[in-house]
């Protein structure tokens, strides 16, 4: 019944035998202990569980772990290069108070990584549009928008 999968997560290779029905979110959180990815609804609406799979933002609660076999996954724990230095997006959120309880934050950060790569100069409307798939119940989004604007600036200023 179980299948063996091999998934690269944050640059590290994990081999595990899993049930086909195991959600990718549960695999990340409970099988390999990366609990920074949060689960808010388990039906693909809230966006808290967003991670990168082969550089695209995906909802880990809507994927099975077996679908990540042979893929490259990045979670929030992989954003700061393993404790080395906060990612500019993390800096942006810290400076602008873009989080309160912080539960939705990992999913929002991961949604923004590919977005800001593709849109280095986003308008406010574009920012609000890309965030429309991530629900935050605390902030009212205003400071998240400001945080994204600052993040975009910080990414540009960052020496390559």
């Amino acid at each position, binding site marked *: 019944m179980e299948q063996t999968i091999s998934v690269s997560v944050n640059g590290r290779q994990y081999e595990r035998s899993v*049930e086909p*029905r*195991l959600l990718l979110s549960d695999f990340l*959180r*409970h099988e390999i*202990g*990366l*609990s*920074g*990815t*949060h*689960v*808010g*609804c*388990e*039906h693909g*609406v*809230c966006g*808290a569980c967003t991670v990168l799979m082969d550089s695209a933002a995906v909802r880990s609660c809507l994927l099975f772990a077996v679908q990540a076999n042979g893929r490259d996954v990045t*979670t*929030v*724990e992989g*954003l*700061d290069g393993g*404790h080395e230095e*906060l990612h500019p997006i*993390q800096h942006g*959120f*810290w*400076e602008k*108070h873009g*989080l*309160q*309880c*912080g*539960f*939705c*934050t*990992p999913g929002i*950060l991961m949604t923004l990584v590919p977005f800001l790569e593709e849109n280095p100069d986003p308008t406010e*409307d574009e*920012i*609000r*549009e890309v*965030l*429309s*798939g*991530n*629900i*935050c*119940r*605390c*902030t*009212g*989004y*205003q*400071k*998240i*928008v400001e945080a994204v604007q600052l993040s975009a600036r910080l990414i540009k200023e960052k020496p390559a």
Partner: protein
Amino acid sequence: MSTRQFGQPIKRNEDPRLLTGRALFTDDVQLAGMLHVAFLRGDLAHARIRSIDVDGARQSPGVAAVYTADDLGDYWQPGPLLVPPPPVEQIEFYQRTQVPLAKEKVCHAGEAVAMVVAESRYLAEDALDGIFVDYEPLDAVVDLESALAEDAPLVHDDLGHNVNARVTQAKGNWLQAEAEADLIIRRRFSYDRGTAAAMENRGIVANWDAKSQHMTIWDTTQAPIAIRNGLAAMLGLSEHQVRVIAPFIGGGFGPKIMMFYPEEVLLAWATMQLGRPLKWIEDREENFYATTQERGQVHDATMALKADGTILGVKDVFLHDAGAYAPYGLTVPVSSQCTLLGPYVVKNYHSEFTSVFTNKPIVTPYRGAGRQHGVFVMERLLDIAAKELATDPIAIRRKNYIQPEQFPYANDIVFQDFTQLVYDSGNYGPALDRALDLVGYEAFVREEQPKRQAEGERVGIGVVSYVEGTGIGPYEGARVTVESSGKVSVATGIGTQGQGHYTSFAQVIADQIGVKVSDIHIVTGDTDLFYWGAGTFASRGAVVAGNAMHAAATKVREKILKLAGEKLEVAEEDLELVEGRVQVKGVPQTSISLGQLAVEANPMRGGVKPGTEPGLEATEYFGPERGATASGVHAVILRVDPETFNLEIEKYVVVHDCGKVINPLILDGQIQGGVAQGIGNAYYEQLHFDENGALLNASLMDYLLPTAPDVPNIVSDHIVTPSPLNPLGVKGAGEAGAIPVGALFAQALDSAFSDIGLEVREIPLSPNRLFELVGAASAGANV
């Protein structure tokens, strides 16, 4: 003295952990040998349980135990009444509280019927399919008025009726006010249910260690100390044998202070039965049924006025939906009753409510906690009166405001904290002026609105006022310790759900001890680190715990100065605390670091003077005489899409008075987030129950939470009227943003459709509902 930290927009101490995914939430707790719990929940709102067959579940793979009510023996007890009825004369009160597992019947959809414990959550959920419950469906009590009919089905058979409570509070003489009135406004208003929908669902990990005879519980609760005390009593343990930790919590908003949720009671018991740690994490669907909700009320309200717009009196008779059980007493309807009075002089007031049991999920406070309803009724009455008197809604508010010299202002009724409702301070006129200025009121109503309406647009403006009782007692405490590293550690009993306590409390302490905010480490919500406290609710964290922090830090400062004076052989008044050192004023080279001083205060050898306490540490408590009165004005300009009836919020202004501001960055965040929830409440979020009590939209696909494109940027400003009731002069701010939004939208929508005489008398609305109301108003009908 270095720069004052109080009042600075300092970024938060807690954020690096949250931003890197390294903050501990309840579901992140992993223990060796841990089992997982799933609940079978009643899918009928009202049904007698004829039998429950759990054999199939017991044989399901990986199942360690299955429990029903009968398996609990004497442990099966209704939960405690958390808040007794208020000390009001001639009150009627009938106590019915939730049970751990339904025994004879289920009283609301989603009530837990059986509990499965298995090796994984997947296996536990699989096993639920092996449980068969034979139900006899019963007619459900859904509608509030029907619940009081003679032949209504009964939520609690033994009670003989569906009344949870009847409470009347009055002052002055309403009948006389009515008789003297030039104008009487009489309307029915309704407010319906929503859910707090914190992004983190509830969760519990309970671990009984038989060898050490000690229980550790991680719980998504806003009140860990009360949970510890209650569970210890239920389990026959000493409070010292139970440690409750409220770790990082993904939003609270009120429902996470409900006690005791069946799951809390059951996991703590079952871990002792099984000798293994247990975890239960609520899923989103369960959250729609098993986590408490709020807001169902129907008000029949009457206002008596003089021709010049002076309020002579208000009579309000309302029904409050308690849901199936009422563990939280009458906090919500009493708050509605009190908050209705708002910032206005109301000499004659008669308010009576009936709290009604229904076959719907339990109602306990949710951000605003009954205040929304009171504000909605009062503000709507004033709007309607202004129309009748052909005056403008601003003038009628200003005319009736309590004036600055009238504070403290006694309202002569009892508030939810059981003290007299006395407003400690306020200054309403300047807040209104500022809001009008920021929203551009005059220009909008004189020029822009007539022009745009003439061009076929639907644009409206709203401006409403509210008062919010915050920062109620009884008390909180704090312990502040200077460690030998020179850094400061702090503990308090309240929990944190995103309010920034790790930073705002540190700012309060930094000013006394002269260390960097980032060098102050705060622990909230761990009962082993701080024993006493009440919890995080009623916008009280900054007020009550914040002032306890201030008191403890002040005491530590005194100890620092005394010891440093002795060590440096100078008078205390010649010393100052600067950046982690105590130095002689003007002679910074004569100094001692706080770390060194902390070591000196805890010597390994030698005698100390009798009565000397070791260390640079103090524990202090703060309990206010009564709550601090925050207030504010919200203003909005909104446009209704004539095709879709979607709203575009063009401008949103909040002018708020929460006394002195500890951290404006955090305060703005609280206000903005509150408004977003208020917008959801006003125009998107409504729980739809059918006539059988089934919840029809129990998913985030169907229950719409505001998303980033739905919420506008909010322009905010503050009026500072310090509270005289606490040394920091602060008032609560956590709920303020959410409270007046329904009333505000109603006024603005009336304004956008004034030509057809729209009069909004209900919240929540939705594009569909507004379309119906506008259609009816156009046809001159009521719907």
